[in-house]
Structures are given as structure tokens and as C-alpha cells.
């Protein structure tokens, strides 16, 4: 059960990192509310 939870957490982290990478390299988020971007989002940018 613990192993399963760890696995799920790692999958969730990897999925969010993909979303962050996409968001860091775009103008805005897709839908009509743009939250303030965290400072460390810059580390996902292709051009720094």
C-alpha cells in the first residue's frame, strides 16, 4: 500500500512538472484566470 502511494505521488509529480514546463514556455494559461506565477517557475523555462 505504501509502495503504491509512493508510486502515485511520483506519477502526480511528473505530470505536474510537464504542465509546469508547458506553462513556463507560454504566454498565459489556457483558460480565463491566470494566477500569479511563482518565482521558481523560471527553472522550467527553455530560454533563461
Amino acid at each position, binding site marked *: 500500500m505504501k509502495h503504491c502511494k509512493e508510486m502515485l505521488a511520483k506519477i502526480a509529480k511528473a505530470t505536474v512538472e510537464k504542465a509546469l514546463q508547458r506553462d513556463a514556455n507560454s504566454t498565459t494559461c*489556457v483558460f480565463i*484566470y*491566470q494566477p500569479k506565477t511563482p518565482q*521558481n517557475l523560471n527553472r522550467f523555462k527553455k530560454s533563461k
Partner: protein
Amino acid sequence: MFTQFATYVTTWLSRTGVIQDDDIELYQYGFFILLTGIFHFIITVVLGFFFNVFCESILFYIMFTLLRSYAGGIHAKTESQCLVLSDLAILICVAGIRILQNSSSIMPPLILLSVGFGCILKLSPLDTEEKPLTTEERRLYKMHSQCIALNIVILAVVTYAIGINGIFHCAAVSLALEGLLLVAGKMSKYSQISDYPE
């Protein structure tokens, strides 16, 4: 709603030790972006199913997402406003695709396509206070959004010429929505500037 869920999942990830405490805000933001994307995709597909334009609704979502990511445009001030306005926009667009499919005239989708394309060429990219762009990013994303818009227009015209009208209608509606969001965003920026004279 999305913020609360994103906070809950991020706290859980932090407790399991998968992410560091310094990154909580970053992953919270990431979950928010991911969850809103999934939610609006489901809304689009469900509306597409009800309006009997299932495949077209998915295609509309893909085209609009691609355009919006680089072209930008207006944003709601709060999360609840976003939920209402985004879903209303999706409803109007999916219903619009259905209406265009029922109409035999080429003029309405052609006008939407041309006006939307013109707005994207002229106004993109339009950033926000929350996520300002650098000069280099502005140049790069302008090129990206114009290339995507041009490819969508070419795809729409070619598929219309070979008799696949569905793609033409999806392209017209997605370009028109993005054009409208850009015009509204530009107007909102100008009104903010004029509210604070030098």
C-alpha cells in the same frame, strides 16, 4: 475549488517527501493549471456530445488551446469568474459549431476565420500583469502564435476544399474566440492605463 484541491494534493505530496517544502507554491500552481485544463476539456467534450459535435468539440479544444497558450488575451480577476466565463465561452463555441454545420452558407465561418486571424496577427501576444513577458519571449511567442494561426487557416481551407466542413467550422470558431479574447484584453489594458494618468 481548484485552488483548494491543488493545495490538498500538494500538501500530500510534501508529506510523502516527493517534493520539497520550498516548492509547495510551485506545485500548487502546477496542479491548478492541470486541473483547470482537465475540467474544461471534460466540459467541452460533454457539451460536444450533447450538441452532437463530439469530434469537432475535441478539435476545437486542441486548436484553441494551442492558440491561447501563445497568443494570450484577457483574463478574469477571480477563479469563480473564470469558471463561469470559460464555460460560457465553451458553450457558445460548441453551439456555434453546431449552428455553422446546420447552415449551408460559407460566409459566416469565413468572416469568423478572417477576423480572428487578423486579430491574432495584429494583437498577439498579449501578456498579463501576473505573468509578464520579456522582449525576447514576446518576439518568440508572436512568431509561434502567428505560425499556429496560419497553419490552422491553411488546414481549414484545404479541408473545406476537399469537402470536410467540420474542421473549417472548428477553426473558424477557435480563431474567432481567440481574436475576441485578444481584443477584450487589449481594451482592458488601455482602460487600466487611462485610469492612472501620469
